[in-house]
């Protein structure tokens, strides 16, 4: 901050008509303004050392039998060859596929809630219901996971107790402890999945539909369901496309609920790539292999994120612009 005091003010009185930060061209050669770089130094140091350097070092060490405390031996592509034969790693991606499909299908609930909410006539009711629907977002994720874990627990768990009370003991399960139900149990954490980004996006895009469009539709006798298919969905298309890609990126990060409730078990039924990566490093001590897994995950995520950005850019110039 003090450095900026030396700023040479005279060069910056730009012609008022132009927007200097966009169009200004330097009228004459400026002296080297070293303080600008000094002001950006903290940013560059932080992201350079704690974001870029680790990413590059993971790629580098993935070609080694990496032993952080002693000498590491180069292995070439051996870690990646191991990865291709790692059954647990690939089955963890199959779980991710299931998680992704489930989370997209589960959008039915936020979509339904948004449609119902937008149909309420009273604005006060809309506000109150919206608030009640999104309150679960405010709770820390670990609390949600632990409370659901309590629901699932085999003996005193609320679900099994309820089944017992209803005389349906035959349906009681060790929900997170059996391979057949564990993954589905994890996915039901947070049911009905309304408190989250999809709901906020659905609701705000429904709110942004111009009233003239809806009035015109009403005059033409378009019913509520027809309106959903013919107006709401097409106008939400670009948003939904973005949500799909965000769900892909989000799914790749999935792991924390699995760690808290099942730790990837039973028998790797709920294993996901992040947990596999951590286990390989912290339990197996195979840091080089873990770095290879980390690099693979990193490249997959970057690829999908790049798609998000491209879709977003195209979406905002065409469909959004057209809709408004």
């Amino acid at each position: 901050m003090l450095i900026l005091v030396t700023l040479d003010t005279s060069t910056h009185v730009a012609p008022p008509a132009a927007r200097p930060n966009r169009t200004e061209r330097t009228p004459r050669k400026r002296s080297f303004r070293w303080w600008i770089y000094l002001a950006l130094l903290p940013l560059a140091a932080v992201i350079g050392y704690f974001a870029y350097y680790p990413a590059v070092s993971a790629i580098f060490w993935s070609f080694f039998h990496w032993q952080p405390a002693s000498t590491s031996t180069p292995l070439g592509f051996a870690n990646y060859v191991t990865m291709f034969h790692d059954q647990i790693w690939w089955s963890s991606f199959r779980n991710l596929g299931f998680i992704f499909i489930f989370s997209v299908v589960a959008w039915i609930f936020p979509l339904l809630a948004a449609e119902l909410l937008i149909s309420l006539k009273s604005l006060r009711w809309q506000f109150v219901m919206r608030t009640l629907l999104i309150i679960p977002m405010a709770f820390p994720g670990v609390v949600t996971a632990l409370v659901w874990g309590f629901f699932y627990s085999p003996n005193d768990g609320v679900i099994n107790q309820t089944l017992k009370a209803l005389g349906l003991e035959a349906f009681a399960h060790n929900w997170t402890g059996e391979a057949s139900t564990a993954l589905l149990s994890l996915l039901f954490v947070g049911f009905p999945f309304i408190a989250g980004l999809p709901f906020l996006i659905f609701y705000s895009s429904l709110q942004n539909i111009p009233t003239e469009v809806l009035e015109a539709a009403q005059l033409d006798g378009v019913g509520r369901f027809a309106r959903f298919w013919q107006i709401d969905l097409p106008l939400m298309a670009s948003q939904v496309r973005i949500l799909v890609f965000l769900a892909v990126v989000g799914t790749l990060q999935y792991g924390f609920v699995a760690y808290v409730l099942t730790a990837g078990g039973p028998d790797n039924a709920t294993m996901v790539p992040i947990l596999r990566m951590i286990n390989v490093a912290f339990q197996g001590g195979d840091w080089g292999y873990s770095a290879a897994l980390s690099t693979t995950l990193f490249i997959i995520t970057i690829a999908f994120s790049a798609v998000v950005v491209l879709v977003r850019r195209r979406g905002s110039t065409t469909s959004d612009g057209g809709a408004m």
Partner: protein
Amino acid sequence: MTIARSRPTRQVRLKTTLIVLAAVGLAPYLFMVVTSFKTNQQFADSFWQISFPLHFENYSVAWNQVAPYLFNTAFVAVLSIVLILVIASIAGFVLARYRFAGRAFIYGAVLVLMMVPGLANLIPLFIIMKDLGLLNTYIVLVIPYTAGGVVLGTILIRNFVEGIPQAIFDAARIDGASGARMYRSVMLPLSLPVLGTIALITVSEVWNDFFWPLLVISDNSLRTVSVGLQFFQGQNVTDYGPLMAGYLIASLPLVALFTFLSKYFLAGVQGGVPGAH
């Protein structure tokens, strides 16, 4: 007549459905509140109903164990927020208001990081911290939150400052304001909403992050809320009242922030989406 009568009933049906949906969503949290006042015996008698007397002592039991986690989390969050806001506001201001060689490159380097989730760096960053001898310190917690926060912060602040009319800066300059003066007296006061949003995103990030504190902290007195609660659960597995009271205590600060500042919170949730900028 028929129309007049069918309208309200349709609205009533809508309201009922929405109330049911909201109730299902809130049920686990209501259950948590109700159970937090019970003894194990009361819980065994009826696990849904409120039963008297209410056992407030569950909260003091839980508080003694959870409070250190809350203080740690708050301390780490405040430290991260200060660092993020100082670094990102200077960088955002300079990137938005000055032209210089390498400007596009530096901003591009920040934008690329928006697409990289922190989890991808978990393993190498852990080794770096271990080599620096920082495991089991507050600093090791602050570093990744700061590194992640300055990325989003710089982008949000730069976009915000670009949106401030140039006329305001021109007027300040004619009055003889230096760059530092404009940063302090023009840009910072106008940027308070976006600074608040960044602070809230950071609080929520620190409160919810799990794997990093799990791996770098083994000293229980330094644990943050998410990992601390998991440990706390292990300690109180058979004592449902204090267990739920502890969960509730750990949630309350975040819920309170969300309730009073939900506008900025939601702006943060939607602004934190990659590709939004």
